[in-house]
């Protein structure tokens, strides 16, 4: 038993420091409102009948059905009784009955909800099935049903509301209990031989208490409204007793004479109902975790970074200079892409590699103009096919980007709209940008599916994404890009989610597409071998910057940046010595919010010196088409030294 108690203690949230979150909750506008409203309701429920009970019951035949006056703040009813005091006095009965029926309802719900776990299986199933059918019916209907059985009047209505609430709570208790039963400490207790009933009382119930209390509070608000409804219909509280619903019923007849007769109890019901709801929300906010996004104040100040971009000739398709991507966060702006410059020439295949968080995907999205607010993209220059992307309006860009820039995203399972047929999803590109009719666009979609080697393309086009396999969807995604005449294909980790054989097929398809269309490719991948095999040039990114930009030919023979070497060394090949320890890069890349002053890689770099910690290296040309941003780049060639570098880094 000791083991299970320890486990239980671990599973129960800490009780220490409870005072402060409650206090903090009351200080929020919602919390303060709910506290004040609740206090007022409770105070009135206790005191009003004692203080004003007699006044509310006084019949004044001289003041029948009067409007608001000095003597009667809200006027009088058909017997000359004061509406204002009657409304205040009715608080006790209205709220009291709501609370009583909630308590009965929650108890009944708990019994119904937890019975299945104690009863023999068939009986338990029957209870569950009954609850499932009952929750489909609205509470008021259930209440009317039970009112028939329990009879008209206060007692009958209380029971009716209670039993109408019960199925909902039974379902809630079931769901919550199922969540707890799956947890380790309950399994441990069960293995330890704890009986079913004891398990329920000692282990399950204490752990579902908090959400139940929250929902019961909100349920009390619902009970209050429902009870008023029943009393309003004449099924609940009967004269001479009165709650708000009863007052409303009596007031409706006199609404022409004095609307306040009906409105006062109505307002009271709404306020009390709100009180319960707000208290429930506040309790939920304190008990559960609810994150509120902090307000973001100032925009980012783009760090100045002038660097020589690659030479830009007439052939350049995509020119990127000093690209920055920034996002607002709870602690101010972060800049995951910090001044990236590169050029993609017509028909060129460029790979972008780096660890996750290096900013490579965001770079791909930014050059495709797919970063959305609140993200902010800035650049000194961002030209695609001679068109400046940042200064041209979205409307003008649509035809250009829609037909000549294709995207392939990482996760084929989520990148298609699940509610539309594949063919239609492809066809809308041509309908939108090429002015094709519905049927001709669909015919083109089928043709394009065929072009990416999807068998039975015509039938496949009529299917939904969930009927496609992952590799098939990724092909269809490429086919989508082929609806126009793509000049650039941005492929963001296109093979990561696929298995190895499908990966190769897909990469071959990309290569073939590139040849057929003379399209350039921006292949973003964390896998440096994939990039090396498929690209002409490689951009190595680290912490939002390009640290090395080199021809693929140089990648194995002459990488200069210590990070590039480390990445290469960390790849596995068939001839990798399996006795040697696996090469890894020690440490982790810095978070975008805490990039150091100097070189971002310095902390993990075996060659780091004082200058690296103080000054950010500027990219410099070290060979034809080869730039590196490093104060101490490798001069020698070959991969062996790279391994040494990593090994020494690992020993550090």
């Amino acid at each position, binding site marked *: 038993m000791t083991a299970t108690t320890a486990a239980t203690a671990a599973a129960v949230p800490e009780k220490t420091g409870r005072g402060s979150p409650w206090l903090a909750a009351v200080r929020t506008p919602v919390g303060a409102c709910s506290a004040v409203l609740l206090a007022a309701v409770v105070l009135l429920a206790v005191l009003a009948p004692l203080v004003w009970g007699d006044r509310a019951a006084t019949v004044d035949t001289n003041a029948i059905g009067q409007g608001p006056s000095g003597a009667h703040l809200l006027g009088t009813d058909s017997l000359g009784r004061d509406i204002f005091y009657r409304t205040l006095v009715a608080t006790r009965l209205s709220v009291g009955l709501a609370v009583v029926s909630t308590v009965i309802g929650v108890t009944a719900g708990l019994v119904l909800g937890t019975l299945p776990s104690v009863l023999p299986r068939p009986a338990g199933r029957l209870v569950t099935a009954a609850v499932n059918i009952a929750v489909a019916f609205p509470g008021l209907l259930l209440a009317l049903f039970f009112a*028939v059985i329990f009879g008209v009047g206060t007692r009958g209505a209380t029971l009716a509301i209670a039993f109408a609430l019960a199925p909902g709570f039974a379902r809630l208790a079931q769901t919550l209990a199922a969540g707890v039963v799956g947890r380790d400490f309950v399994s441990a207790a069960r293995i330890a031989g704890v009986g079913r009933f004891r398990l329920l009382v000692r282990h399950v119930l204490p752990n579902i208490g908090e959400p139940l209390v929250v929902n019961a509070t909100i349920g009390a608000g619902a009970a209050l409204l429902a009870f*008023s409804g029943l009393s309003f219909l004449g099924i609940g509280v009967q004269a001479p007793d009165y709650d708000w619903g009863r007052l409303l019923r009596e007031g409706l007849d006199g609404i022409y004479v004095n609307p306040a007769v*009906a409105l006062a109890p109505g307002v009271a019901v709404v306020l009390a109902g709100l009180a319960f709801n707000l208290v429930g929300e506040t309790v939920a906010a304190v008990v559960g975790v609810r994150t509120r996004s902090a307000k973001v104040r100032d925009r980012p100040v783009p760090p100045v970074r002038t660097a020589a971009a690659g030479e830009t000739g007439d052939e350049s398709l995509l020119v990127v200079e000093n690209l920055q991507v920034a996002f607002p966060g709870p602690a101010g702006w972060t800049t995951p892409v910090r001044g990236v410059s590169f050029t993609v020439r017509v028909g060129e295949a460029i790979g972008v590699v780096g660890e996750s968080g290096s900013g490579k995907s965001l770079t791909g999205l930014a050059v495709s103009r797919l970063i959305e607010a609140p993200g902010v993209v800035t650049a000194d220059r961002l030209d695609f096919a001679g068109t400046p992307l940042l200064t041209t309006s979205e409307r003008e860009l649509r035809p250009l980007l829609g037909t000549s820039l294709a995207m392939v995203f990482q996760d084929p399972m989520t990148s298609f709209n699940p509610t539309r047929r594949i063919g239609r999803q492809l066809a809308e590109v041509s309908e939108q940008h090429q002015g094709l009719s519905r049927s001709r666009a669909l015919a083109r979609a089928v043709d394009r599916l065929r072009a990416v080697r999807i068998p039975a393309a015509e039938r496949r086009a009529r299917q939904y994404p969930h009927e496609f396999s992952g590799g098939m969807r990724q092909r269809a995604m490429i086919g989508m890009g082929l609806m126009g005449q793509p000049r650039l294909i941005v492929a963001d980790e296109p093979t990561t989610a696929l298995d190895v054989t499908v990966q190769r097929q897909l990469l071959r398809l990309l290569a073939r597409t590139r040849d057929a269309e003379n399209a350039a490719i921006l292949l973003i991948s964390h896998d440096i071998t994939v990039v090396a095999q498929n690209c002409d040039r490689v951009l190595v990114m680290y912490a939002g910057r390009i640290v090395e930009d080199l021809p693929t030919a140089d990648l194995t023979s002459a990488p200069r940046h210590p990070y590039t070497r480390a990445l290469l060394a960390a790849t596995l090949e068939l001839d990798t010595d399996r006795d040697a320890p696996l090469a890894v890069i020690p440490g982790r890349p810095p978070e975008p919010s805490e990039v150091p002053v100097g070189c971002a890689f310095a902390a993990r770099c075996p060659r780091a010196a004082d200058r690296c910690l103080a000054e950010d290296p500027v990219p410099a040309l070290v060979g034809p088409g080869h730039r590196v941003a490093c104060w101490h780049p490798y001069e020698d060639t070959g991969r062996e030294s790279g391994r040494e570098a990593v090994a020494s880094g690992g020993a550090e």
Partner: protein
Amino acid sequence: MTTLAVAPGPRAGVRGTSPWLSFARRRLTRFLVSLWALVTTAFLMIQLVPGDPVRASLGLTAPVELVEARREALGLNDPVWVRYGHYLGGLFTGDFGTSMGSGQPVSQVIGDRLPATLELALPAFAVVAVLSVPLGVLFAVLTRGGRRRGAELAFTSVSVFLAAVPEFLVAVGLVALLSVRLGWFPVAGSDGASAFVLPVAALAIGPAAVLARIVRVEMLSVLGDDFIRTARAKRLPRRLVYVRHALPNALTAALTIGGLLLTSMVAGTVLVENVFAWPGLGSTIVQSILQKDYPLVQGVVLMYGVGVLLVNLLVDVVLALLDPRSTIREN
């Protein structure tokens, strides 16, 4: 369709059957089981009434012979299972029993009253759909990514407030303001088109507010999905991205949650009808409960129950049309 020839996706229904067929079969079975449970419950309701329902209906002073004769006529002296059999058999032939109060067949009372309730409920459903979906979408688009905090606050507080006020209070408020104070609409009754405005509004405002909130939340969540990025990568106009790609997906989620809301409107008609003295089933059920006219109560409860089941069924069919995956999803 030759969907069975080649094995389609990994999750396409049972081999050899269309997912639609198995969906229809599954869903129809559920409907029939629920219907049976409902009918049985309605039958049991009368058996559970404490004391003698005939005595309760005829009053304490009624002569014993009259009570006995009525009991015999209603078959109340038979064993329970015989009565259950009679009840089921009667339902199949459209015999819902006889009202103790008026002596009319219950089916006739329902036939007289049901149209008025439908005239109230159906326009209210339409109003909810027409108001909540565009409003939810609009405010999702306006306030996404933490923009326009003011609009978000206004939308949330107004919708939370409207959702918190029960329909009969909305009705009373509307009557007090628009009928009594301004005299624009009749206070009660169902004569003329203007008589419909307030009851339909009272029935629709709360659910519309709740559903608009749900639609907004679901839209916000869908707008963050990967396939929205795909749609944007196709450079579709924003309108198409929202309406064609985001909305159907947001609606499937919103409808799943909002289904209960629509069924609650079925019950809401009871309260609203009573505020406006509307000659529908809602007035009937309350009067018959108060008069202890049990056969009539039984019949009307059954009608409301069937209404709820039908709304649930309809919601599931719409879901299946919007999202074909829901036809193959097991519950």
